[in-house]
């Protein structure tokens, strides 16, 4: 595995006469990098979808939960110099508890006093502002910081694409977490209870599922997934108090995949990651930020329920 030493690239304009060899390099690199960033979008999309499926609430604080978890890890590891084997579980526990308690003590109360779901959505927006404001008040969010990479950042070549060991670790960990999540959802009693709550909460309650506990678990788990995403990507994208804006890409992934489909969220994440790179490489760097919205538009026009959204249903009002 040699270090990346690309040949002297020909000086070609990016356009219809692009050299085929260069186009192939772009294609391979775009897919490789897109899979890495896409795996993190997929994790966050998974966290969004699992909450939406069970609570019917799009959690607009997911990005800030991701951001705040990253800062918890940064604070413990860099500023408190705690060992990483303490920092990692501590961060996950904090994220789990914060989200579970938010569900229990904020959303449950809001739901009690206001039946309309829109108030729950507003509560998640409130959480996003609280978390962002809190991180800014600490002063740690004033300057871009890097959470130290826990694996080497040396580059290796896969085909003609350059990736780092960190990239492979991000991709591998994200896929493992997603697999573990699917396993739990499909093969454990708790997971089946969560699915039942997603399908029909009243029926689930009738057969003995503790709804409150189940919701707390689901929100807690979504916090854990967000924290893992933050720990994975923070060494690559640099941390700021605004890093939660990445959640827009996760929402795009969820919409592309189908907002009610867990596998769809994962596929959507990879699609968005790759589309971003392809648009940047073959169209324009300026258009990268438009790529997710372009993907959403295309999917909404061709398949409004998303790639894995199942059969389109229309509710009568």
């Amino acid at each position, binding site marked *: 595995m040699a270090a990346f030493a*690309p040949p002297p*690239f020909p000086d070609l304009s990016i356009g219809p006469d692009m050299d085929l060899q260069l186009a192939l390099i772009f294609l391979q690199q775009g897919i490789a990098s897109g899979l890495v960033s896409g795996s993190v979008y997929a994790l966050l999309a998974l966290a969004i979808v699992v909450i939406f499926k069970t609570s019917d609430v799009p959690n607009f604080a997911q990005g800030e939960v991701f951001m705040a978890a990253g800062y918890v890890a940064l604070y413990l590891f860099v500023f408190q110099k705690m060992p990483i084997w303490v920092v990692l579980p501590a961060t996950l526990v904090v994220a789990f508890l914060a989200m579970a308690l938010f569900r229990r003590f904020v959303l449950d109360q809001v739901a009690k006093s206001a039946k309309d779901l829109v108030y729950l959505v507003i509560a998640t927006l409130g959480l996003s502002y609280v978390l962002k404001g809190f991180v800014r008040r600490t002063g740690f969010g004033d300057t871009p910081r890097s959470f130290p990479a826990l694996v080497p950042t040396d580059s290796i070549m896969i085909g003609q694409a350059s990736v780092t060991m960190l990239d492979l670790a991000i991709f591998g960990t994200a896929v493992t977490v997603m697999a573990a999540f699917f396993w739990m959802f499909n093969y454990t009693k708790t997971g089946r209870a969560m699915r039942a709550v997603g399908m029909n909460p009243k029926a689930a309650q009738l057969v003995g599922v503790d709804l409150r506990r189940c919701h707390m678990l689901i929100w807690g788990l979504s916090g854990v997934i967000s924290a893992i995403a933050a720990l994975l990507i923070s060494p690559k994208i640099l941390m700021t108090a605004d890093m939660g804006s990445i959640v827009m*890409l996760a929402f795009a992934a969820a919409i592309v995949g189908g907002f009610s489909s867990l596998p769809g969220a994962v596929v959507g994440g990879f699609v968005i*990651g790759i589309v971003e*790179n392809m*648009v940047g490489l073959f169209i324009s760097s300026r258009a990268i930020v438009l790529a997710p919205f372009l993907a959403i538009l295309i999917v909404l026009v061709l398949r409004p329920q998303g790639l894995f959204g199942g059969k389109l249903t229309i509710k009568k009002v």
Partner: protein
Amino acid sequence: MSVNKTAAGLTLAASLLIGAAAGAQEPGITDKAIKIGIFGPLSGPNMAYGFDVVNAAKMYYDKINKEGGIHGRKIEYVVEDDRCNANDLVAAVKKLVEQENVFMLNGGSCSAAVVAAKDYVVRNKVPYLMLNASGDGALFPPTDYIFGAYSISQYAVGGAMVEFAAKQFGAKNVAYINHDDAYGAWNLEGSKKDAEVNGVKLSVESINPGINDVTAPFLKVRAANPDAILLVTYARPAALLIKKAAEMGFNKPIILSVTGTASLNQLAENVGKDALKNFYTQEVMIDSPGGAKLKPIYDMYKAAYPDLAAKPDHPQTYMPYGIPPAMSLVKALKDAGPNPTREKVLAALKTQDFDSGVMAGRMQFGPQQRAANRSTIFIKYDGTTMAPLPGVFTSRWTYQAK
């Protein structure tokens, strides 16, 4: 009763006369003081760009006051927090002008925010000197009231970088990564003139400041096989690009604009020292931050703010930038004579030309020139030591009325 009525009438007439006289007088000026309004980001995420810049300006005014003031008048300043936010900044400016009745304004550390104040300041004919904002959109086309770019104009940032790449490395093919906004457009426009004169081909990639994955723009730049890469971005995208360059084995010079980092130590932490093997950063001061030539400024800060100076990361990198605008304001007031008016001060500013001893170039204004500094130096930084390189590099860009 009638006596009371007469007295009341006389009192009212006297009040009106006094009011009329006061109205004719310049706002913010008394026999003993000249009131100025200072504003900058004292809180919020962009505080590092201006908190200590405001402190530096204040300490310079305090120094002038200790030395006797200006033609016998002391400088009295009122400070407002603009949070680098356009709405907050305009509110601060209005408060300073309408409630505090300041004679002139001295503030702003963020370019986009200061541009928002342009219409109000021009409409109210208030002399406005920026702090360290480049604020090119407020400076050009030139007005009679706004003066700035004491740190440097964005038009000049890119041009000076192209000049450095051409002269220092003989670069003929330069990759140029800027932001896809007005800020990026300003510095690219400034660069084109210097590229043309030096026979340099610019391969431009414009990116969104919030970009997360820089693979695509970097790979395209890499494909152009440049002799050097110029990064004219904010800190976060700059660090991402420097990391990506290291990952992809790019070993030619990487030159970072002055806007690219508020802390070189933090940059080294973020990208790793290996990524800084062939790395140069632009600086608009005469020396690297904390360097020997700037020692008097740092000593003044320690004396003025002993508590702050004892804290880590203080003074902040941009602290000395607050001195030249304060010097400019003081000089304009002195040049305006013992009976200053806003118009006299504005006239003095239009021909101002002095060496601040802080910035790389002279502070020069002219009939069409509202950006004080257009010069920079460059520092080689390897992650540990900063080594200023000889020479001052100046952009050729000048404003041409369209």
